[in-house]
C-alpha cells in the first residue's frame, strides 16, 4: 500500500488552527505524513510539540526549512548552519546561476521556482547537474490560476517536468498549505502531476515514494549510526 507524504506544510497553518483539526484534515486528504516548513530560527521546542501531537493522530512529521538565497556565499553559509538541524531543505533560486549552484549541492533536497518569474526556470543546464528533486507547489499555482493566464504556467511546468523526466530527476508535488482549505487530496495532487506529463505510476511516486525517500535518506544521515555514504553502524551504539 502506498503511503502519501506532503513534503511542504507551512508552520502558519499550525499557528492559525488547532493541531487536532490540522491533523484531521491531513488524514482526510489521504496523507500519512507531512514535512513542516518553518523559519530556521523557530523554537525547536514548539516544533517538537507539534510533532508529538501529530504522532498521537498517527501522522509522521519531518522538519523542513526553505531558503531564498541572494548569493552563492549566502546559500553555502545557510546550508552549513542548517543541514544538520532539518530533515528537508528546499531552495528557491532567484537567478539561474543560483539554481545551478543549488542543484549540484548534495545538501539541497528540493529545488523549486517562483512561478511568477519567467526568466528563472528549470533548464537543461540545471538538470544536468541536479542531484536533488524538483518540487512543484500547488498553492502558488492555484493562486496564479485564479488571476488567469494559467496556460503559460502549465506550459512552463510541462516543459520542466519533461526535462526532469529526461534526466531521471525525481519530482515531488507538495501543497505548501497555509490554510486548511489549501490542504489538497493526495491523489488529486498526483492527478495534477499526471496532467503535467508524468506517467500514472510516476505521478503517484511524486506524492509518495519520492518524498518518502528524501525523508528516510536524511533521517539516516542525521542518525548517530550514520558514518558516511554507504557506511553505518549496526548493532548497539
Amino acid at each position, binding site marked *: 500500500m502506498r503511503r502519501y507524504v506532503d513534503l511542504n506544510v507551512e508552520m502558519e497553518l499550525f499557528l492559525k488552527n488547532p493541531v487536532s483539526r490540522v491533523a484531521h484534515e491531513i488524514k482526510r486528504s489521504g496523507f500519512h505524513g507531512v514535512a513542516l516548513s518553518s523559519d530556521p530560527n523557530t523554537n525547536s521546542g514548539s516544533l517538537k510539540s507539534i510533532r508529538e501531537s501529530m504522532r498521537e493522530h498517527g501522522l509522521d512529521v519531518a522538519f523542513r526549512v526553505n531558503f531564498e538565497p541572494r548569493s552563492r556565499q549566502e546559500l553555502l553559509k545557510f546550508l552549513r548552519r542548517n543541514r544538520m538541524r532539518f530533515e528537508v531543505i528546499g531552495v528557491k533560486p532567484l537567478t539561474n546561476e543560483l539554481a545551478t549552484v543549488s542543484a549540484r549541492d548534495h545538501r539541497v533536497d528540493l529545488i523549486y521556482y517562483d512561478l511568477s518569474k519567467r526568466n528563472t526556470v528549470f533548464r537543461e543546464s540545471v538538470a544536468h547537474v541536479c542531484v536533488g528533486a524538483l518540487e512543484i507547489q*500547488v498553492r502558488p499555482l492555484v493562486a496564479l490560476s*485564479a488571476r488567469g493566464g494559467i496556460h503559460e504556467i502549465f506550459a512552463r511546468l510541462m516543459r520542466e517536468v519533461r526535462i526532469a523526466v529526461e534526466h531521471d530527476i525525481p519530482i515531488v508535488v507538495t501543497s505548501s498549505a497555509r490554510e486548511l482549505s489549501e490542504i489538497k487530496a493526495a*491523489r488529486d495532487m498526483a492527478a495534477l502531476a499526471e496532467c503535467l506529463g508524468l506517467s500514472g505510476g510516476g505521478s503517484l511516486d511524486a506524492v509518495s515514494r519520492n518524498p518518502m525517500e528524501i525523508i528516510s535518506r536524511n533521517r539516516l544521515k542525521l542518525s548517530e549510526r550514520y558514518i558516511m555514504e554507504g557506511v553505518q553502524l549496526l548493532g548497539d551504539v
Partner: protein
Amino acid sequence: MDWKTLYSGFIKTLTNLFGEFGLARVELRSIASKDNLIIIRCRRGEEHMVRCAALMLTSMDGQPVKARTLRVSGTLKSLKRFLSRDSI
C-alpha cells in the same frame, strides 16, 4: 450550494484548464448529489483531468470552495456502498 452550481463550477474550471476540446474529451456528466457530495461521471482514463479540476477549484459564485475527490469507481453500486459508510 446546489448541484447545478457545483457542476457548473466544475465545467468552468475544466474549460479554463483544458479548453472546450478537453471538456469534450472528458465527457463530464453529473449523476447525483446530496448535501456537499456530488457524483460525477467521466470517460475512463480521463479521471485525472477531473481530479485536477477539483484541485484547482477554489471559488464558485464568489464563495470560497474546496473540492476533494473521495472515491473513483467504475460502478455506481460501489460508490453508493462507499457513501453509505459511516465514515463519510
